[in-house]
């Protein structure tokens, strides 16, 4: 029944093996992108450009400011002389954060009272702003703590703890965990883009080169043709995932606490559903140019609406519905859970089922769409 799948697979692999450019594109860019995006995609904030205005000129104020200067999270760009200088720095985006120590800061501290520290944050990027505030809070709290300890030692008497004037951000996580969260997401996204791109051109290229016309006059069945295209790309996809996961584990030191077989199973379903997306594009488009534009049109929403960076639960309901047909949505859950949390099939099965249904549906659609005619 499916006798012609094997020659199709052999043919695809021979083509791939002889195509130097394709071999290069399958190995080098994924590794480079993995390294690049692994660093780029993070919620953590480093080197926040900071302007400082010290109106107190006390030992205490200098101590506090030194804590910002010596901290890698902040990059003190400017020591302002006046409030106007501060305003200008923020307005011109020269600084994202401004810290103002008002006159009388030290005096209040010495009296054992809480002392205000004025912080101005450019809220344009609310995410960075919130995180920077969190760091400032930590630094201010550390300063207050040390000051109290110091004061107690010097005065030799019990003082009531100093008030921390900034609000607490309990969710803040100053550690490396941000990278752990993103690297698995980068793995899934890279794989999706790579596989959809490979498969979207798989049929269109044969149409443009003219080999498809030849295949159409043979007695090959649409299912044999589509599956003959599926198998090689599936195997290539497995290799790709292994490659980028290896980079994640060895370079970024991502933990792998879960069961490799659960990840393998989930990856298989993810690959099938993503290459089905590509094949469907390929059966619908008639030129590589069309396939290229369609890919672009499809992949961007897949990425944005995957939960890679923006929580699906915070999206409007309509967009949330769209995420149900997005294989990346499910795979991100699976890969984060297997790598970081060690969660098994007992929890992940709904995502597995969803990807399986998607794969089945889209592959069937591709087979039905693939007509053995030139129109």
């Amino acid at each position, binding site marked *: 029944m499916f006798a012609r799948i094997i*020659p199709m697979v052999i043919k695809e692999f*021979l*083509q791939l093996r002889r*195509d130097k450019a394709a071999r290069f594109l399958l190995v080098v860019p994924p590794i480079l992108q993995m390294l690049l995006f692994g660093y780029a995609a993070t919620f953590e904030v480093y080197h926040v450009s900071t302007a400082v205005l010290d109106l107190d000129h006390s030992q205490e104020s200098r101590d506090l400011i030194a804590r910002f200067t010596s901290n890698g999270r902040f990059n003190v760009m400017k020591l302002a002389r006046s409030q106007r200088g501060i305003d200008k720095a923020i307005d011109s985006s020269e600084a994202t954060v401004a810290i103002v120590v008002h006159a009388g800061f030290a005096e209040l501290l010495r009296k054992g009272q809480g002392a205000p520290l004025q912080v101005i944050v450019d809220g344009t990027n609310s995410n960075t702003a919130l995180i920077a505030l969190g760091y400032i809070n930590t630094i201010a709290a550390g300063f207050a703590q040390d000051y109290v300890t110091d004061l107690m030692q010097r005065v030799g008497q019990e003082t009531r703890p100093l008030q921390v004037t900034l609000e607490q951000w309990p969710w803040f996580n100053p550690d490396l965990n941000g990278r752990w969260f993103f690297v698995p997401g980068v793995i899934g996204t890279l794989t999706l883009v790579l596989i959809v791109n490979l498969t979207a051109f798989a049929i269109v290229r044969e149409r443009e080169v*003219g080999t498809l*016309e*030849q295949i159409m006059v043979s*007695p*090959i069945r649409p299912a044999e043709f589509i599956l003959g295209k599926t198998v090689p790309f599936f195997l290539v996809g497995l290799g790709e995932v292994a490659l980028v996961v290896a980079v994640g584990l060895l370079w970024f030191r991502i933990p792998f606490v879960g069961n490799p077989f659960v990840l393998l199973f989930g990856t298989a379903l993810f690959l099938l559903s993503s290459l089905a997306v590509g094949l469907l594009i390929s059966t619908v488009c008639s030129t590589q140019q069309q396939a290229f534009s369609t890919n672009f049109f499809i992949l961007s929403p897949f990425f944005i609406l995957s939960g890679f960076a923006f929580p699906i639960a915070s999206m409007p309901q309509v967009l949330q519905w769209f995420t149900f047909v997005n294989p990346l949505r499910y795979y991100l859950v699976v890969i984060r859970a297997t790598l970081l949390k060690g969660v098994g099939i007992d929890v992940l099965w709904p995502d597995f089922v969803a990807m399986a249904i998607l794969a089945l549906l889209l592959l069937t659609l591709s087979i039905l769409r693939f007509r053995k005619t030139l129109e």
Partner: protein
Amino acid sequence: MNAARESIVTADGLTKRFAEVAAVDGLSFSVNHGEIFGLVGPDGAGKTTTMRMLAGVLRPDGGGIVIDGVDVVADPESGKPHLSYMPQRFGLYEELTVDENIRFYADLFEVAQDVREERASRLLAASGMSQFRGRRAGQLSGGMKQKLGLTCALVHTPQILLLDEPTTGVDPVSRREFWGILYGLREEGVTILITTAYLDEAERCNRLALLHNGHLLYCDTPAALKQRMSGAVVAITSSAGRAAHAAIADLAGVSNVILVGSGVHAVVDDAASRIPALRDALQRGNVVFDDIAVTAPSIEDVFVALLEDERRPR
């Protein structure tokens, strides 16, 4: 045996339009078992479109196709095992070697191992390709690519072979080899439909169909088509073909002048009375010529004349 039983491919009122253009318009013809049938016509006549419909990769908008007694419009897949189709641009996998291409197409048609090897060796030997079996298709010359295409198309044993301009851009030696293979196939009883841009090749067909704007103008043997031409052909042997063409094109009684390798051919209504006029016109135009005489019309003369008749407003 009557004629109806002999015909193996029948097109009946075949029609295909692309948007505004009627690429094929009510085309009817039938091809007899075991003949080489040529579809000829200028570019855009609808030859490729006809071939594609016969091969079952394009659905006609109207009309019927019967191949070996089976209605292939209703079921395009039913014709495919009997057919072999070599498109105008044969789809070879350029990264694959000659042998790998052949093996792939043999696999698609599920040709038995021993049969395919025997056939491939014979076809490759006939086209002088035996020593290139390990070479990548992308590195073959244009003529070799066409011959490999033919080999791939023939690796299963089709009853009917559809060839769309198989020799366009192929060198003369390869073309001769190509036709050698076609004659051999005809001996084996294979029916061949071929389109060609070379009218000397048209002469090699058993029967010809002349297409123009998707219509069938004439369908007959090359000899009968030549008889159909009214008037005579006068050959003027000259190295100044263009000048000769210009000098005589507008003379009374000259319906057509075409450039040929040795000079020009002029189609005239009556040779005896027109030759002196032609001679005069050439001398008046200072055109040097070696000879002027009546000649047997070539199929090219016939087609140009017949097409000209068709284009001329009536």
